[in-house]
């Protein structure tokens, strides 16, 4: 394997799953950005999408359900040279991990967060996810989901996210471009990726999305926050994909005194004279 080629291992996904094209696009994006696989850390929690780190030749951290973000931001804090990518599902990111989602937007550590948003729980075989449509029937919601679906893009913009995008697994060329922008963005970048689940979601299918999604055109101004929030609410007959909102903000590393010097935390030399001085304060 050459240094910057990312290969895919055998997977345990259903044939026809949107995860395949997302993984393919991710490999492509990393290769086109000339990323060294040994400096890439893929992080996930638990779920079907969360198996992605197991299927790509890079460092991998498959932690607990919902807890990918805390582990990922801390790894980046420890070693800023790592390209840290959280690649996982809507249940992991917005359900079990909802609290971490909100607060890591505020933290703004320079990581990338790809959410395979298939609006359904796949690994546990087809229950409603936080983004499932109202009325969607599942084994656990037999009379239809009565809860309002979460709009993660709108939430991320409202919480202060500096890079918030939406993409579709069926438009690979566009997805690769969005992924590259998200990885290059200096700060926390969210890409909510619409994706069909061939086994459990009979509503939001490939053709459902294909008929509705449209790319934002060059005239769209992603720096206008109020307009971006309007755009984020556009969901129905037409679904916009692209960078919905972008703004440059100071990152966690830039704001933190210890990290702002540019030396990775793990490379800072030990200094026993400081400890000795601290101890002397107690005499």
């Amino acid at each position, binding site marked *: 394997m050459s240094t910057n080629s990312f290969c895919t291992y055998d997977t345990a996904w259903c044939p026809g799953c949107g995860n395949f094209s997302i993984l393919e696009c991710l490999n492509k994006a990393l290769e086109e950005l000339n990323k060294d696989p040994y400096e890439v850390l893929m992080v996930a929690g638990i779920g079907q999408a969360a198996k992605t780190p197991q299927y790509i030749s890079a460092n991998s951290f498959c*932690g*607990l359900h919902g807890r990918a973000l805390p582990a990922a931001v801390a790894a980046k804090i420890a070693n800023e040279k790592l390209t840290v990518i959280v690649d996982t599902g809507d249940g992991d990111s917005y359900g079990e991990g909802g609290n971490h989602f909100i607060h890591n937007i505020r933290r703004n550590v320079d990581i990338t967060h790809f959410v395979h948003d298939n609006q359904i729980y796949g690994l546990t075989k087809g229950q409603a996810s936080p983004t499932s449509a109202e009325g969607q029937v599942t084994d656990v919601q037999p009379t239809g989901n009565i809860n309002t679906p979460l709009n993660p893009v709108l939430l991320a913009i409202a919480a202060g996210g500096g890079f918030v995008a939406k993409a579709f697994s069926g438009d690979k060329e566009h997805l690769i471009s969005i992924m590259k922008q998200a990885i290059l963005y200096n700060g926390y970048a969210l890409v909510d990726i619409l994706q069909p689940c061939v086994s459990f979601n009979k509503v939001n299918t490939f053709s459902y999305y294909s008929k509705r999604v449209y790319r934002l055109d060059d005239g769209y101004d992603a720096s206008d926050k109020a307009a971006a929030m309007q755009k984020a609410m556009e969901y129905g007959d037409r679904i916009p994909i692209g960078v919905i909102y972008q703004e440059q903000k100071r990152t966690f590393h830039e704001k933190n005194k210890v990290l702002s010097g540019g030396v990775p*935390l793990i490379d800072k030399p030990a200094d026993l004279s400081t400890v000795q001085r601290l101890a002397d304060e107690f005499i």
Partner: protein
Amino acid sequence: MYNILIGGAAGQGIETTASILEKLLKKSGYNVFTTRDFMSRVRGGHNFSLIRFGTEIVTSHSDRLDGIIALNDETVELHKDKLKDTGFILCDSKLTTADERAIKIDMDAMAKALGNPRVSGSIAVGVILKLFGEQLDHVREIIRTFVKEEYLEINLKAVAEGYDSVEKRFPHLEGKFGDWMILSGSKALALGAIAAGLKFYSAYPMSPATPVMEYLAEKGDESGLVVEQAEDEIAAINMAIGASFAGARAMTGTSGGGFCLMVEALGLSGMAEIPLVAVDVQRPGPTTGLPTRTEQSDLKFVISASQGEFPRMVIALRNHKDSFYQTIRAFELAEKYQIPVILLSDQYLGDASGTVEPFDFSLIKHNQPVSTDVADGEYLRYRFTEDGISPRLIPGKTKNFVAADSDEHDERGWITESGDMRIQMMDKRMKKLEKLKEELQEPEFLGDEACDTLLLGWGSVYGSIAEAVKLLNSTQNGTYGALVFGDIYPLPQKLLKEKALSAKHIINIEQNATGQLADLIREQTGITCTGSILKYDGRQISGEEIVEKIQKGVLS
């Protein structure tokens, strides 16, 4: 040995006065031990600090008082019964007490005359120094560390006025501890972590663990470590694990309630074999319990917390020295065995100030490098080895891929559902305990080697047990010894079995309602305690209380 109490309502400056006094008394040569008893409120209520000082090492508090500094009438009412006949009650003239031991001084009026009512605490400091025959040598240097420069002179004047307002009452005793350190258990723990090369600390505020985070945050910039206040304890521990995976020495800390939220990730540290130090500064539970008080009731919880089975180590901190050195050791063991190591402290130890010999930094193996031995051929993060310890590399620092997985996995770190692999991986992880058991530290033995009665304790009751054993052996009524556990899980058994064999009575002394150490000992060794002293009112047992209970007949 002397013992004074400073009491009043929250917000009256008890903590500052106690902190200044303890430092001045230590500078003058005394060994000082200060305990802090406070309510879960910011203003009002009744709080007090006990400052005990003498010329030999003071290991715990005492309930017999030589003096009370009463900032309100309630303090006099609550504590006067514990005051010796020769003792004094220092208070403002406004207080209504008619107790003949009272020394009433117009401290508030004097402070106002000096130009700032807030310096009355410094007047009290001056009075105390004079009563105990102290000089004013160190006052300037100490007070300077507590007040802003512009308030220094007025406070020094206040101390001098207090000093001149009374006559000396107790003789100054010549101690040798002027050059020792005085610090709280939580600060000793935090300093130990910094000395061990801590780079990342994540926590959510919770009493009584917050002082650890506060100290690390205060010293973080100069020590080159990042302190992050997490959104919850689940995030806190997962962050610490993520940072550790990426090569930073990492720690998280909380009290029992927060630890409840951390348990799933504790298992992640065990399963993915990522070093982690987790601190539990215990307080009475269950649930919110008594937030600002003390207990030792999380032992059985932390030794079994999280689903499934994985190797872990639990170290109970007995005193301030332990808080420093055992924290360093916790990092070394966590890294060597790639396991979670849990440090059990409690409110009593965490908030109490103790006097300790200056820490010896030459003993510290700083930032032990992670193994670079990847063996021949393909790098396997979870390679099977003789002792179960696999080569751990740091992602990004090697041309190998480093994996971590909470699923059962193979040697590469990939998901597996193979039954054979499952057994091999479980055995590999559990095998690490065998080697760990070889380097366990036996409990500390105190008292008479040929004891009839063996007292057993763990963690912070060390100080009170040490004092009780001394008192009991001086009564010539039986012979007493004690074993106090620091390393507690896995349980070191050698010395316990040896001492239990010859003892007629074995009594466990614990700050909990069910005798958790006694249970653990019985489960692991079959040794049964013949009596027990259990205290769970949120207040630490004293040496005198232990003696009293034993004399009243726990030995039956």
